């Protein structure tokens, strides 16, 4: 059995090797091979984790002195999702990123971002979590500013300031916890907090929620997101919207739900989630900038997932995770296609895409499918995941749960309207004659097609998926 430590070691070493060789081919090759290998690694570990979480011994030092790591079904599942998404985005980047634009550095930073993403799902130490969280944030700042133009730099700067505030909150929370528990292992934290003063725990929990919540795009600390996700290169937007915020969400929710279980934060989380859904959809509704619209949509979709988690039931957790999978596929596809719309027209404004669907028919059609799945049109995957979120909410019952159902349904109407407004523009009659076909380059097209295939035919996977979704959902309430 290959050690799951490779999840952290492999991308990190790949990053160093890339810098050493400074060759585009090696960088590209490594950043394709590493995620693919890690996806395979995750798959090979998955069966062992379905029964029970597998602790990992780091450097032969057991906790509390060593850093406790553990791979469970949730970790393996998220790792596979991250690895597969990353491999596809790298494939897309191979044709999307302009040649000679510091490509090696780009792939290096992506690898470092992957290191921290994998680290976040494996770690069971709250300070170690902080470290990986910082790495994730910093690599994100770099990637957001990649275009080096005014908007990108501004977005990155805002992101950095807000991320730092979040880190500070997180650090405050960790300090509070350490004072009580005397240990940073999450398991010890959970035991210690159970007997601590409840006001104290509540304060630590809230600072933790809004600290990690920055990266997880939880309302109202997600204000950096519309700028950052829209100004970043589209491949990076796909990474950030596709799995980074989801991953941060899962990690944040798991820790809150387990280590801070002494205080019932679920009602608070639910209110925050519902607010996120409605604010995201309403803000996206009037957007004229495609990527910004998609970014706001991510805010609301994160809200839907968080809402499902916050129901506190097994069904809710499962539904949330399935919706997460769907959103990862659909939003990545949408951002990646938007990237090529921008390449072809040189504009981010939807109004400038009139008739683009005739030039890029395949891309526009894939955009349509991904959008359909995102709004939950049957029989695409999005319908099944959204339906499960809604029925889990119905089963959980209570005023806020039904309020959430109503808000999600209303949000879906808005989402449909604004996404199909884009499609209407795309397929508007061509202004002059029939312009030459200029679809995406094939590596990009292949990557997008795979993402879209997931959200279109994903419903067929659901029976198979359900075997692993159950244990994964358990992971949200367990620290082993």
């Amino acid at each position: 059995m290959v050690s799951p430590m490779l999840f952290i070691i492999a991308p990190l070493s790949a990053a160093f090797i890339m810098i050493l060789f400074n060759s585009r081919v090696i960088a590209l090759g490594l950043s394709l091979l590493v995620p693919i290998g890690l996806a395979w690694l995750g798959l090979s570990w998955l069966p062992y984790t379905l029964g029970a979480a597998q602790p990992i011994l780091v450097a032969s030092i057991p906790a509390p002195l060593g850093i406790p790591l553990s791979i469970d079904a949730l970790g393996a599942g998220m790792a596979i999702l991250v690895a597969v998404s990353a491999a596809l985005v790298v494939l897309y980047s191979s044709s999307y990123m302009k040649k000679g634009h510091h490509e090696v550095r780009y792939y290096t930073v992506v690898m470092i971002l992957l290191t921290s993403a994998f680290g976040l799902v494996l770690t069971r130490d709250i300070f170690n979590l902080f470290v990986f969280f910082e790495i994730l944030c910093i690599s994100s700042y770099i990637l957001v500013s990649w275009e080096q133009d005014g908007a990108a730099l501004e977005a990155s700067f805002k992101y950095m300031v807000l991320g730092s505030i979040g880190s500070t909150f997180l650090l405050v929370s960790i300090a509070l916890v350490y004072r009580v528990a005397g240990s940073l292992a999450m398991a010890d934290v959970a035991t210690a907090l159970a007997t601590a003063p409840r006001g104290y725990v509540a304060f630590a929990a809230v600072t933790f929620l809004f600290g990690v919540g920055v990266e997880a795009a939880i309302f109202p600390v997600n204000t950096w997101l519309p700028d950052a996700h829209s100004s970043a290169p589209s491949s990076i937007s796909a990474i950030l919207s596709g799995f980074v915020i989801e991953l941060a969400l899962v990690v944040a929710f798991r820790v809150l739900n387990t280590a801070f279980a002494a205080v019932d934060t679920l009602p608070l989380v639910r209110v925050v989630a519902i607010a996120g859904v409605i604010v995201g959809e309403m803000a996206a509704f009037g957007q004229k900038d495609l990527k910004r619209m998609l970014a706001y949509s991510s805010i609301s979709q994160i809200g839907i997932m968080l809402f499902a988690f916050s129901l506190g039931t097994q069904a809710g957790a499962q539904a949330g995770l399935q919706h997460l999978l769907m959103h990862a596929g659909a939003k990545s596809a949408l951002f990646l296609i938007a990237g090529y719309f921008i390449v072809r027209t040189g504009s981010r404004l939807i109004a400038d895409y009139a008739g683009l669907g005739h030039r890029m028919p395949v891309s526009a059609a894939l955009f349509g499918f991904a959008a359909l799945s995102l709004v939950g049109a049957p029989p695409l995957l999005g319908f099944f995941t959204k339906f499960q979120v809604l029925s889990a909410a119905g089963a959980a019952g209570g005023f806020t749960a039904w309020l959430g159902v109503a808000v999600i349904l209303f949000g879906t109407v808005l989402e449909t309207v604004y996404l199909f407004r884009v499609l209407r523009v795309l397929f508007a009659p061509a202004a002059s004659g029939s312009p030459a076909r200029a679809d995406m380059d094939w590596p990009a097209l292949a990557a997008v097609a795979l993402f879209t295939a997931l959200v279109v035919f994903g419903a067929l996977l659901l029976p198979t998926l359900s075997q692993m979704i159950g244990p994964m959902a358990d992971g949200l309430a367990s620290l082993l």
Partner: protein
Amino acid sequence: MYTQALLLLPLVGFGVAFLLQGTVKRSPAIVKTWAMLGFAAIAAVAALAGAEIGTLYEGPTVFGSVLTYGLTDLSWWFVLLIAGITALTTVFTLGSLRYADDYPMYYAWLFAKVFGMIGLVMSRDLLSFFIMWEIMSWATYLVMQQGRDESRKAAQGYLVYAISAGMILLGGVVFLRTASGSFEFAVITKFVAGADLGVIITAIVLVLVPFLIEAAVYPTHGWLPSAYASSETTMTAYLSSISTRMGLFGLILFVFNVFGLDVIDRIGISAHLNLRTLLLVLAALTAVLPTYTALFQHDAKRLLTWHSIGQGGYMLLGLATASTLGTAGGLMHIFNYMTYVALIIFSIAAVEYRTGTTNLNKLGGLITRQPVAFLGMLFGIIGLAGIPPMNGFVSKWFIYRSLILGGYPFVALAAFIATVGTIMSVYKLIHNTFLGQLPERYNEVREVGWVMQLPIWVLMAVVFATGVFPGTILQWIARIQVELGIAPIAYTLGGVAQEAGDLNMMVITLVFTLTFIVGAVIFFMGGKRRIVSQYDNYAAGHFLNKDVPYNFNYNFYSAFDHIFEKLYHAAPVQSTERNLGRLVATVGEYIRRFFTGQINTYAAYYVAAVIIALAFLKEVL
């Protein structure tokens, strides 16, 4: 086996038509042949499928419950209507559909829509009903958004309504599933029968409102006219004739079968002020207001789309009485309206095919150039206006009768008023298209080819035959009524035999024919007629010639328009709809301002978030 085939054939048809779209502009014959074969096969299977009524076909398992499909008498009737009108429309499009315009996906979307509709009527559980409902809505959107930019815009309007309806219905599905624990209709029926009034009202509102929206019942009809009128003309015929009725299907299924009339009638203040009274009032408004709006339309297609709304009101009037005669009238009117509206729009499409316009201000005098289209429209509008001997008279007679007998005199009055409007507007339609002087530019217009004439002749025969022998249709209606738990109608071949007055269309037709013959005899024997040039004429004291043409066509009913102009433009529905859209946009804009772009406000949000969250958690206090 036929049940599976009914679901599978449209899917296969869709797949192949989708793949064939690339060949459309080079050789349209391939995809047209495929569509014709496909829809003919569906019609044939639909006709045979009656043998399988009552058997259930189990589809895939979703969320632990099996999706079941099967035919009942009601759904078989609808399947026949769908398959029949689709086949006829396809025959017409073989001649009329030109690919100079941008309709490469016409048949693919049509197959998808047929799949959604057939699937919808065959669904035997709530989940598959919802899935098919959504597929149908999306397919309708796709069907509508083809072609010009105008249709795209109108389709977007439809999408807002359709998706709102879909989401309300989804809320209803989740609610009923949560409350009853099952998607099965039988379980839901049992659950609703024993549920609290609050639960019933919630379920009924969530489930029935989407159907009212899809059926374009006042005041949710705002989407229909633009969406239908800006579609390709054969598609207008198709959408008007069958698509809107899917909402009524849902209403019939849930009111009579799933919820049951007893449960529906529990909601209300008294025996005469209940949910059904509300439906009757809405239906009456639907019948009256859109019919008079139709008068002011200057486009033939748009004029008829308003009738699609109005005539839907008649259907709902009959159904909401829940009496034998009323439901028979409502159900029959669905069939009748389908036949004559398709007939009228095919005639319009034939005119449009030759003249390139449906603008009523520009047409006229085409009777000598396109006599078949004229006859088609004549038969159709006699049906639409509810005049014997066409089939529209029978169903309308049933509906009036049931309203009077059921003790709803004011509603009956509204129905009569609507009929006056109908007659006025269909006269405008036929006059402005076929009567009056022929504009010079249309001198060369010829009749359309036999392929396009065929559906017109077929529908003329149907409209007439089912008008003279309504028993042929009523035998189906009686079977459906038994299934819905209503006493079946005592039909005869010529109409209905009942204590409160018989109806025998054969006698009426005979009288009509004799009168017609007497009139014809007087006309021909009188020897007073003289055939003159169309310019050898006068009007209002003026001689008419090429330079001073007969101009009643232009702005027909302008006096009427003048009187009611203010009322029409104050149309509360359209402005409400616009204002709602504006409200969402404005509120959205305010909410978006939450994202100020200023780091200092964002930093303040952190602090505020922590403080509010702590206050929320209470444990701190």
